């Protein structure tokens, strides 16, 4: 069963397009993206784990979680929900965090729009567009809050991912 994973950066437009199909109905995929206990089971690449600190799934609400390394190191991910269409779409604005998970005022932002689509045969598709601000650097966001200057952690992740 092909899952049609697409990862397409458009650096000139400062956008990354990510799509993936799932062998599950869209209702289940929506739950997996909107229930913290379920999100924690897939958002951090193993053996990293995820810990939700704040989850307020309303427009203007905050989602703050940490990806925790085996050495206890934390990378905070802070996002504000900017639009929610129940069962079909979520938009978030990602903000840069300090080591305690506090967003950095005036720091660069990223924007993610995710759509959830139903496919034939009890399948579904998730399509995300991540947009970066003009003067922000794409690397700073890595979506996972992997912060600028944590080169060692980057290479850790590289090794980790290479081992997958």
């Amino acid at each position, binding site marked *: 069963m092909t*899952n049609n*994973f697409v*990862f397409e*950066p458009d*650096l*000139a437009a*400062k956008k*990354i397009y*990510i799509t*993936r199909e*799932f*062998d*599950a109905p869209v209702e*289940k*995929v929506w*739950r*997996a993206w909107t229930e913290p206990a*379920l999100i924690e*089971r*897939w*958002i951090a*690449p*193993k053996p990293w784990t995820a810990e939700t600190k704040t989850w307020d799934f309303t427009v203007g609400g905050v989602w703050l979680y940490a990806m925790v390394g085996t050495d206890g190191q934390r990378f905070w991910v802070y996002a504000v929900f900017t639009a929610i269409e129940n069962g079909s779409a979520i938009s978030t604005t990602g903000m840069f965090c300090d080591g305690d998970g506090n967003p950095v005022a005036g720091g660069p932002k990223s924007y993610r729009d995710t759509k959830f689509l139903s496919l034939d045969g009890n399948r579904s598709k998730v399509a995300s567009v991540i947009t970066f601000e*003009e*003067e*922000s*650097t*794409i*690397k*700073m966001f*890595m*979506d*996972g809050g992997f912060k*600028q200057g944590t080169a060692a952690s*980057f290479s850790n*992740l*590289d090794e980790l*991912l*290479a081992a*997958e």
Partner: protein
Amino acid sequence: MDIRRDIYQAIADPTRRAILTLLTVGAMTPNAIAGHFGSSRQAVSKHIQILAECGAVDQDQRGREIFYQLNINKMKEIDHWMESFRKLWQTRFNQLDDVLKDL
């Protein structure tokens, strides 16, 4: 003061992206580069300086003239990082497949 910039700042600006595209054809002098843009020579010169600080371009002194050329290895950093970001999402989605099986 030694200003450390990273390669992503090089591509954050449209003029700098255009300069990098120009340099894919070959090394050029600042004057030749500026000739391709409507903005002032000083503005273009500032962009070239930032590109040099990012490590995106190298200087090559030829006689009395300075040529700028692309630093290919540095540009590969972007590809490298993109690849790790792609793998992160691939891994997440594979883990999500497992979560969905249990739901």
